[in-house]
């Protein structure tokens, strides 16, 4: 079923809020974009409406205009999004999966047409005025963020290493380790035991250093093509690792679309030829990792 979304003006102090402000419904915020022209915005909303999963994140996708900004919203039952209900439903993986994809689908549909600042999942405002006031307070900085992210996509980069393969290479080529092995081969049993322990520790440290260098080498090659890079600690998990692999680099890159192919080619070139290394990337994503959050202090919204 094709449905067209509404474009709503959110004037400060406007009397007669919609029926949806009756107290049982809230405004689910997908993201913030330029208000643009009415026709352009209508196309954006229709595009987002097609992408949305009916019933997943509420009903019609709408644009709530405030000055030069438009909040992309849906009206949702507050009962589904109060602290207790949402807390319980976030543990339902199937529900979360559907909701997360619906959230992303709407944002991605807008992102294909114009810059959008994705909102954090689960942001529900109690009234149109509440959301409008929040937009007013941050209007200038939100516009600056939109300008910064215009024409850019986020790409996820992962680098995996087979530690055993890397270890074999490192330990066979490392002069200090070879000297230690030579020393062990002629040492008395007691001393050999302690040297063996020392060797094991130094081998592990050498491999750790090599893995850090491999990751650093790849990200260094990609940085010139990125407007921004966010590196995350891969030790929190090794998503996507196969077999004995460990994830040694997990990063999000903000890439101008014109630089997308050259960045991907550089990534390919940086991984190929290194035995024991595997790279994976996904994208283009809306710039989730590059919108500022107040606690980061970089761009206080």
């Amino acid at each position, binding site marked *: 079923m094709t449905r067209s979304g509404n474009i709503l003006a959110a004037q400060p102090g406007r009397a007669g809020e919609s029926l949806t402000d009756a107290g049982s419904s809230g405004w689910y915020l997908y993201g913030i974009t330029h208000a643009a022209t009415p026709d352009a915005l209508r196309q954006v909303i229709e595009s987002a409406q097609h992408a949305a999963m009916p019933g997943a994140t509420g009903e019609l996708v709408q644009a709530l205009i405030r000055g030069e900004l438009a909040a992309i919203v849906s009206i949702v039952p507050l009962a589904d*999004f109060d602290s207790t209900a949402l807390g319980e439903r976030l543990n339902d993986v199937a529900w979360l999966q559907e909701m997360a994809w619906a959230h992303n689908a709407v944002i991605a549909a807008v992102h294909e047409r114009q810059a959008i600042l*994705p909102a954090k999942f689960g942001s529900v405002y109690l009234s149109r005025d509440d959301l409008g006031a*929040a937009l007013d307070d941050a209007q200038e900085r939100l516009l600056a963020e939109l300008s910064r992210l215009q024409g850019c996509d986020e790409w996820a980069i992962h680098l995996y290493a087979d530690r055993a393969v890397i270890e074999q290479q490192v330990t066979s080529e490392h002069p200090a380790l070879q000297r230690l092995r030579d020393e062990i081969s002629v040492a008395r049993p007691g001393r050999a035991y302690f040297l063996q322990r020392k060797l094991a520790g130094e081998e592990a440290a050498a491999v750790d250093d090599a893995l850090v260098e491999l990751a650093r080498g790849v990200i260094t090659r990609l940085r010139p093509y990125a407007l921004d890079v966010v590196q995350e600690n891969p030790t*929190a998990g090794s*998503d996507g690792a196969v077999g004995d692999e460990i994830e040694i680099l997990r990063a999000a890159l903000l890439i101008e679309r014109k630089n997308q192919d050259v960045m991907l080619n550089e990534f390919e070139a940086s991984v190929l030829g290194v035995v024991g290394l595997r790279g994976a990337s996904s994208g283009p994503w809306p710039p989730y990792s590059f919108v500022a959050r107040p606690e980061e202090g970089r761009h206080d919204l």
Partner: protein
Amino acid sequence: MTYSRTDEQEVTLLELLDRVIAHGVILAGDITISVADVDLIYLGLRVMLSSVDQAQQSGLGLGRDRRTEVLDG
């Protein structure tokens, strides 16, 4: 040494959640769920999903309009 590229490969749920839940603009207002609540739930969920992801590799049947590249050195 191989290099493969597919245009329509699945994207794991973790990849999505890392973006949708862990990031995003937060505007001051009467949001009905606190950011801290979502973050805490997300952290616990991520640990659980990470083990699922390790086992299934392909995630939970997700992914559209996303290009995923796999590079083998």
